[in-house]
């Protein structure tokens, strides 16, 4: 099966993220197989599927937490599938975590500043002697971090420890932190989980805005179908590690295999029963 989007004649170099046939299995269990994805600049795609379908595993493969057994992953035309996670981040791939993994005892500001770390040189001499370039760099990092916090409405909490933030704020901080690495491709793992309806609406706007302002490609794992159908241009559906459907939201909604995966096989109800 070939998952190249219809009419996609673009070569891999035009793709910010170019994933071809990656797979991994854990002790005989094939967690993800033959997964491909091609995201140009400005893409906002969704990755959905029932629990345990392998969505987060795909993220872990892309970010180098797990190593893919087959296929290739390229960011801006550069192969990253043999790199370490921090090198992949440097190559321009950033992510958030489904089970929030903030640096709990660090301040909100520091959480973002840590992620600014990879764009710059941090020699020991510069750090210890506070040489000019080091001071300038630290200032620029702090300013960039504050800008991001402002964008996510977290400015007034920059001195709080991250673990003391509300759930929704923690999710937003995760995105801000990921953006601080100045990625080209952003992977969001259930960013709306635990948010209320208004927060979700705001989040959708924010995600679009980030994409537009920064020309990113964003891949979204989300269980909130309203959000996914609303913001995503294309959606890939996983079940038991395999892609079962791929296309625009309206097609996906009508796709019988997707409905089956989510709701199960329709059964004939006996007369007189109502659902």
């Amino acid at each position, binding site marked *: 099966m070939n998952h190249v989007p219809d009419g996609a004649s673009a070569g891999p170099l035009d793709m910010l993220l170019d994933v071809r046939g990656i797979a991994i299995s854990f002790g005989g269990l094939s967690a993800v197989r033959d997964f491909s994805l091609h995201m140009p600049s400005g893409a906002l795609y969704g990755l959905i599927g029932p629990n345990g379908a392998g969505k987060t595993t795909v993220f872990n493969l892309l*970010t180098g937490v797990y190593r893919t057994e087959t296929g290739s992953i390229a960011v801006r035309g550069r192969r990253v599938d043999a790199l370490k996670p921090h090198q992949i981040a440097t190559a321009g791939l950033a992510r958030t975590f489904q089970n929030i*993994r903030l640096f709990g005892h660090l301040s909100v500001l520091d959480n973002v500043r840590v992620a600014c770390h990879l764009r710059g040189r941090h020699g020991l001499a510069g750090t210890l002697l*506070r040489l000019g370039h080091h001071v300038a760099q*630290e200032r620029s990092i702090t300013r960039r971090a504050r800008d991001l916090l402002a964008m996510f409405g977290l400015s007034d909490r920059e001195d709080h420890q991250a673990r003391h933030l509300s759930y929704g704020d923690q999710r937003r901080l995760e995105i801000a932190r990921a953006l601080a690495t*100045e990625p080209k491709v952003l992977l969001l793992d259930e960013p709306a989980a635990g948010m209320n309806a208004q927060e979700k609406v705001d989040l959708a706007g924010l995600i679009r805005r980030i994409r537009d302002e920064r020309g990113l490609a964003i891949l979204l794992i989300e269980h909130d179908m309203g959000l996914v159908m609303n913001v995503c241009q294309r959606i890939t559906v996983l079940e038991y590690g395999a892609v079962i459907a791929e296309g625009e939201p309206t097609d996906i909604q009508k796709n019988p295999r997707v409905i089956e995966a989510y709701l199960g096989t329709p059964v004939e109800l006996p007369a007189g029963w109502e659902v």
Partner: protein
Amino acid sequence: MDDSNNLAPTRSAVLRNVTLPVAGAVALGLLMQLVVGPASGPYATRLMLDVGVAIIAAVSLNIINGYTGQFSVGHAAFIAAGGYVAGSFTYYCSLLWWGEYAKHGGFLGMGEWLFFCSCLLGGFGAAALGWLVGLPSLRLRGDYLAIVTLGFGEILRVLLQNTNRQIFDAEQLRDATWRQLVPPPLGGAQGFSDVPKYTNLFWMYLMVAVTLFVAVRLKISSTGRAFLSIREDEIAAEAMGVDITRLKVRAFIVAAFFAGIAGGLFAHQSGTVIRPIDAGFQRSFEIVIMVVLGGLGSISGVTLAAVILTLLPALLLDFAQYRMILYALLLILLMIFRPQGLLGVKELWDFARPWRRGGTRT
């Protein structure tokens, strides 16, 4: 994005960031040497020297255990390595140059500069070891790393016990055969004695100040934040582009360097003989206790703990027998009732500004 160009280093910045701290460190050393020392007598001076070694040791271990959250229990090995390198260098150089191992020159005289270089050498030697120990740590989680560092200390102890006999006179040293020099003549199980006693309050507190400066500057910098992020969550740190491998090794190297300096100062202190047992786990545990009591990551807390835990047994002489028992109980009770230590990750100065909720800032 990169706006470092319009912020070129100005003269005043260099003055503020380099010259002032160095001047401050020298001033502290001079103050301790010329005013505090003479005013408080030899016994108190001796205690202050012990406190100095403890501070450097604990604050440097804090860089590994507190900042990066790696758990090393082999710090004494770095101290001993630095002590042996520095002590033997001063001793044998004195023997070769001046024909005797007695002190040479007065305050800030030739001998003291040799001693200073020895301490630096000890620091570099220990840092090399730190690099070596840091390497396996990349792949090891907390408790495994603890065992490896512990084992490393014991290895060093065994190696030191199998060194050659110390050479006590210049003639013999010049005529020494290879068999006497390899393994190096570090005194074996008896330890290495008669190192010239150069350590005084000036050098001690100069190095204490330098160590504290480095610890503070590391903590409130990008590197320091990256260290802390490793402690908080390695996987997230990696995903944010933090090269955890390199940073862990860097933490080990910096910490080992200062431990080596502490060892050098200790070796040149009067009344000490450096022994293989100094590399062993018991001394390491004492330093771990200081760091845990003070609060993993808190420089001021760890300094405070180093001072308290060094002075306490000296103040309560009868208590020597029960000292380690008390420490052990302290460790257990701390973990049950106040696992963050005295200050947690906070610094003393964080308490002066109660609206701050933690974290650090430049």
